[in-house]
């Protein structure tokens, strides 16, 4: 029989096998999840969770699908957080410092408490990427925030009301669209296709009988 631990979901005690993640422990306890469960693999940010271990002061945060249960764990899930998402037209904005000022002026109210960084379920340096956003350094902001799953825990802990994940999303889109170097071979290929330059090659291969296709496939050159 596997060792069990005591965990408290919303204050109520359950005995669960110690090998489980918080998410699987909730299901073991009988919860049929609707909210607070998405990809179950740490990518979607649906299962943001806050917990405290009995006898300790520190509030910890995690994704329920990625965190193993511990004895004396008090768990509260955060299946939704009212982030501020400003609406904009990506084709009309430009990667200037002003755009952050216009859309997310609250980032300039950051008091430097670093609660966001401490809370990040992905271990990102959140306060640092907000600092980059303040200075209009979108490449750095995009890079620093890249692994964000937008779970919203940072914003839940922020005294300045900043919606960090949305600020980072804007920075990444600005970088991807306007700052990253243009891909010339992509532009060229798109133009060639539009022009019909590759149509004949395509028709040639599609017109071949299956036996010939098999022959071609089994003996095709493979790039090293």
């Amino acid at each position, binding site marked *: 029989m596997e060792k069990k631990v005591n965990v408290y979901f919303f204050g109520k005690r359950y005995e669960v096998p110690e090998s489980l993640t918080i998410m699987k422990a909730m299901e073991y306890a009988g919860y049929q999840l609707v909210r607070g469960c998405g990809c179950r*693999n740490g990518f979607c940010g649906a299962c943001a969770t806050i917990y405290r271990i009995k006898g300790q002061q520190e509030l910890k945060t995690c994704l329920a699908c990625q965190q193993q249960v511990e004895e004396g764990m008090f768990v509260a899930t955060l299946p939704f957080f009212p982030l501020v998402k400003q609406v904009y037209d990506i084709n009309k904005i430009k990667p200037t410092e002003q755009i952050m000022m216009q859309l997310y002026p609250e980032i300039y109210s950051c008091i430097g408490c670093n609660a966001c960084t401490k809370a990040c379920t992905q271990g990102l340096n959140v306060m640092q990427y907000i600092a980059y956003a303040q200075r209009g350094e979108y490449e750095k902001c*995009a890079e620093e925030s890249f692994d964000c799953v937008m779970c919203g825990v940072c914003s839940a802990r922020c005294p300045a009301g900043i919606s960090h994940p949305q600020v980072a999303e804007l920075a990444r889109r600005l970088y991807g669209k306007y700052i990253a170097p243009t891909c010339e071979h992509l532009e060229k290929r798109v133009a060639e296709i539009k022009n019909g330059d*590759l149509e004949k090659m395509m028709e040639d291969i599609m017109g071949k009988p299956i036996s010939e296709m098999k022959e071609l496939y089994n003996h095709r050159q493979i790039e090293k």
Partner: protein
Amino acid sequence: MYNYTEEQLVSMKKVEATRQERFENLFPRMSAEEKEQVLKENHPDYIESAYEQLKVGPNKGDKVLHELADLLQGKSRVLDMKIDLEHPAYDVDVLVIGGGGAGASAAITAHKNGANVLMVTKLRIGDANTMMAEGGIQAADKENDSPAIHYLDAFGGGHFAAKPELLKKLVYEAPDAIKWLSDLGVMFDKDENGNMITTHGGGTSRKRMHACKDYSGAEIMRTLRDEVLNREIPIVDFTAAIEIIKDDKGNAAGAVLLNMETKEIFVAKAKTVIIATGGAGRLHYQGFPTSNHYGATADGLVLAYRAGAKLLYVDTLQYHPTGVAEPTQIFGALVTEKVRSLGAQLVNKEGQAFVYSLETRDVTASSIIRECKKRNNSIKTTDGEGVWLDTPMIELIGGEGTIEKRIPAMYRMFSKYGIDIRKEPILVYPTLHYQNGGIDISENGEAGIKNLFVAGEAVGGIHGRNRLMGNSLLDIIVFGRNAGHFAAQRAKEVTVGKLTLSHVNAFEKELEEAGLKPTRLSPQILPDYTRKDM
């Protein structure tokens, strides 16, 4: 923190001992005959007892897996309900069912074409397999490559079964799909001159795998989601479509919706409907674990089938070669193919390589199953068995720091359990990953029922009987945009007739005549993982 067993530690030493030699001498690729043999003898698709014949519907007589048959021939959720079709809660041009990459691409494109769009999704927008696609997206955009070469790779990889006109669309519109994403702000991995950093995937003959580190799908999905929100397209979340509504002309004309929290029923009336509900991993076919998201329960297939749409190749599933075998907390989670693209090899208990690492997924998965079940060369794990994926090889090839730079999500996932994949190999076993088949569509995305369109993993026929890595992220974009475009165009000329659910009753009658009295409600909507022995 994970503690290796004694057996695992002994075996791991053997992997280390052979690393240098395996680095110098790559395991050879299989011949066409060898591939065929390993598939026939080991691939789960060939296990006859897992299948049964459908007794009713457009695919009557075809074989499908038991778990899917139960749902396709299940009991409709609307039979015992009184549904007021006269007063729909929503009346729109285009109804998009599903909030993943295909649904979002379709919604954006339909909206751009002037349509009034509504998106309904049973979880949140972005809670989808798209979000978890790690490895990349294919497109033939380099000098040494062409859509024709991409076509041959995918056609052969899919065992020459793809519908040619669909596969042509996939490869031909691929570069434009990448450009579209790039213009929306997706951050592809590029060098300092803007050239795409591309790698091989299993079965590719050119390096055409574009990536956004190993968050490729996540980066694409969060960008598409942001764009849907910027366009202020209404999203009704935690709401499942439980039946397609038709009009008295027999055309698709909306859906019955279930608010999953309040259980309230709504009617959405629409000029055109797009099914973008994704795959079926959460049905756990043949007892496999899955890499899929929580909502992957084949709902769209059930809805379309009951409405009279034909399915294609739903008997073939993709088992991703490398699901996590240990630690147990993340059992079945995906270890991206990119790990092998970067050079990690598959190695058995004795430290020997047993398959070329980048064969197509079905061949690689079958080889792992053979190594475990037939050759007894597996390593025992908490939940079963597995083989090694020798990740430290990546740094041997690409230099120190490659893992953190190129596959940060993998590094993070394992480090949470104290496993450093830069230094230690990891244990893997195939996991249920992708539904190769789905709803049969024509080139414009229509499912044989007028005004019913399909996009994404719910479609069958694009890839044939096996899909290459990087062609799924591609298909959700190409066919999502395709469906969005044609659904919006069509909506301009449609006048919806009187709404009806008579096809549901007709299907029920067919079930009765076939001697079936299903009690299980379908679509399933969500899996049930609650403990049953309470």
